[in-house]
């Protein structure tokens, strides 16, 4: 059997350890070893974005990251978006705005969109389309996805505004 490496990482905020072969992608490790099947394998060659996760806060395609590379780093998958009591506003808006059909692209869009809104809370439509250009959807025609992200951005800024007002 091939040699396995012991990897320590922070996964969705939790310290996590796993064993993997050098040749295994982060996507394989997430899905097959850690049983987090949110990230999807669309193309397995970096073209579709369905496997998008955050690596130290920035979106990457996990099919083009080796599992051994995440030693000491933090990884966020779509499973890390919602908290125990409610969906992330992006997830809620994707549902309300019917921004998914088959759903295979959805985890990747959600994770990339979260990274965008973390960095730029009020993006223009062009900025949203530019940031999500690495995610492919073969069902929705994109418009509903863009609108759901705009909608979530409004909700998040409203929520953060209320939180700020309460703190004052």
């Amino acid at each position, binding site marked *: 059997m*091939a*040699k396995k*490496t012991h990897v320590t990482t922070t996964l969705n905020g939790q310290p996590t350890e796993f064993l993997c*072969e*050098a*040749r295994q*992608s982060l996507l394989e490790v997430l899905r097959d070893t850690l049983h987090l099947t949110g990230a999807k394998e669309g193309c*397995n*060659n*970096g073209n579709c*974005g369905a496997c*998008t996760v955050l*690596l130290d806060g*920035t*979106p*990457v*395609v996990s*099919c*083009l*990251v*080796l599992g*051994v*590379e995440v*030693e000491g780093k933090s990884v966020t998958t779509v499973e890390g978006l919602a908290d125990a009591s409610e969906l992330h506003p992006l997830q809620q808006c994707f549902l309300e705005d019917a921004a998914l059909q088959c759903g295979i692209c959805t985890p990747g869009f959600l994770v*990339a969109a979260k*990274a965008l809104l973390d960095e730029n809370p009020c993006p223009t439509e*062009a900025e949203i389309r*530019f*940031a*999500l*250009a*690495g*995610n492919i959807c073969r069902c929705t025609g994109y418009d509903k996805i863009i609108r759901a992200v705009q909608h979530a951005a409004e909700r998040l800024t409203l929520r953060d505004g209320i939180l700020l007002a309460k703190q004052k």
Partner: protein
Amino acid sequence: MTEFEYAAPTSVAEAARLLSQAKGRAKILAGGTDLLVQLREGLRHADLVVDVKRIPSMTEIRQESSGSWRIGAATPCQQIENHPGIRSSYPALADAVRIIGGWQIKNRATLGGNLCTSSPAGDSLPALIASHAEGIIAGEDGSTRRVPMESFCTGPGKNVLQDGELLEAFVLPAPPAGSSGAYLRFIPRHEMDIAVVGCGAMLAVTNGKITAARIGLGAVAPTPLFAEQASQGLLGQVPSRDIFAQAGEQSRAIARPISDMRSPADYRTHLVGVLVKRSLEIAFRRIQGESIDPLHHSWTAESSSL
């Protein structure tokens, strides 16, 4: 993917030692956006993969006392795009790394990887040529040598790196006074495609005359090209659309494109003229303080100071 060993050295010396021990059976992993695809598809093979992203000198951007900038070869494109010093000093490079791929790819893909893949259509290469960049290559014995960007690639997928050598960083000289630049790429859609033709330009203007110019071309020959004659022809001239068009004509003369599914050869040659003229114009307008986004610039209904 077939099995391989993985190492993540923390110094160039350690990496060089691993590479020389592996005697040509090691591959360097930077962003992985080319290498991991090729390993998976069986296009390349490795017994050892050497991850260079834990080597500080290969992942940092810093200005040297001479005013030149040093960019680690394993620095992700997104970090280069975000860097205020790079954006203001080398707009052509900032333009190029911005459109090199989607966000996920830009967070991983590196300048060194783009260069070492040595595709004739690599987006960063014409911009690096325009920026007068050199690559610093580390050898097995601790030595280093410098190679100008226009001499790095020797053919499609081929370059000057020898077994055991490692591209460590890029050095970009301080931009000349009164200079700016641009990178333009023609693709048949808005985004996310491989260049039919790419053109990087750098222009400096002092007292109304052109004092420095460099034009780099991509996807029109087996390697990226420095349009030397066209660049030198601009020196001493007063910037104008006609002068820029002339540089475009001269650049067409060195294009030796192929026909493929992206474009017939004669259309590529035509595009060289157009992109050289337009990238010089954007560079000039940026020198004058205009803020131009090449992705959203309309070339119809022009009004400008030119």
